[in-house]
């Protein structure tokens, strides 16, 4: 059965359909953060027009939130980093994702899995935005700058007010 999450931001709401058949571990991990309220009050802290919007790890003021452990990278599940899909962000280590995710703002085929190497692992897609794409477009378009050693931080906080599983 398809699982669905609605995120409400100051810009409006969008709904995400999760692919728990193809990305079971990633979906379970994402839902556990949703259920614990981890994403409520976090911001989209990295917004790059024509590329992606990333969030799920920071409270306003670039304060990093504690997370659960790192999860296995399911990027080899055949799902592609197409526009409006969600994928897990991570460090350079392939299996290092925790709570941060990003929404692709374009077709980012070079983020797809190509081989089981550090360079080729890619980023695990686990869902897609099915309504409220205009809200995602609005977030992608906000003005950004450099803040606290980070590039591409929105000048005005783009906050996730609530993230709720739709049952």
């Amino acid at each position: 059965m398809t699982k669905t999450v609605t995120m409400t931001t100051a810009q409006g709401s969008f709904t995400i359909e999760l692919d728990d058949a193809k990305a079971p571990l990633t979906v379970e991990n994402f839902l556990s953060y949703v259920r614990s309220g981890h994403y409520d009050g976090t911001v989209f802290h990295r917004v790059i027009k024509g590329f992606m919007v990333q969030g799920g790890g920071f409270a306003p003021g670039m304060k990093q939130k504690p997370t659960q452990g790192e999860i296995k990278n399911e990027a080899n599940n055949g799902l592609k980093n197409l526009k409006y899909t969600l994928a897990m962000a991570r460090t350079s280590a392939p299996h290092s994702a925790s709570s941060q995710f990003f929404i692709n703002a374009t077709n980012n085929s070079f983020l797809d899995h190509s081989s089981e190497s550090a360079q080729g692992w890619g980023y695990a897609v686990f869902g897609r935005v099915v309504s409220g794409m205009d809200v995602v477009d609005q977030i992608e378009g906000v003005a950004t700058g450099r803040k606290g050693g980070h590039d591409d931080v929105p000048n005005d906080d783009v906050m996730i007010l609530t993230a709720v599983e739709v049952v």
Partner: protein
Amino acid sequence: MSGAQAGAQAWQADLGWQRIDLLSDVHLHADMPRTFEAWRDHMLGTPADAVLLLGDLFEVWVGDDARHQGFEAECVSVLRQASAQKVLAFMPGNRDFLVGDELLAEAGVQRLADPTLLCCWGQRWLLSHGDALCLADQAYQQFRAQVRSAGWQQQFLALPLADRQRQARAMRDASTAHQASLGPQHWSDVDDAAAAQWLADADASALIHGHTHRPGTHALPGGGLRHVLGDWDFDTKPSRARMMQLSSTGLQAIDLGDVA
């Protein structure tokens, strides 16, 4: 144009990177100690997440067995220290095309094909050393095809190290004399039509290359751009080193020396 027409190999930046440095034509050589120091300081000090070395890092490279000796060993040590902090990748140039996998593995450096399509932050940049596009110099293109062939390389690498070093010195002297006799205005440059074709084949809008020691930006037929990195020299005054840095906002030229 060996290896050039088959389409560029894609090389992807990590999602989380913020800066990528591009540099070429450092021409590291024991006779150029200040250039070595400037390069070392940059490699170890740059805040970039990755440094891409686009050819002619070394003034000459006669085989990886030279890497254990004095100056070459110092260069390898810098690469190894830098690669512990950030991602390094190397594309061969016309002077260091004999850099082998042994050296790269030991130094923790990835290999880049020429050309390479760099994908970062949704941008697509075509990277090349540049010599493969200097088509007007037919004698050089013949020489290039010869020395890039596996047969020639096997034969050359089978020679004793001292013989290879002697030959390399002779080739470098001949090249310097040839360039001096022509004068800079006659040095071969990148063929803009061929560069535009490379861009079209790779679906990229800009090429970044070195080799010609003529830093600048040129419009190409068809609307693309060609950005040219500069060579490094901190052993003569004024010093010069034009590199470039990529970020989510695009390309920025950076002059590390006196010349801007």
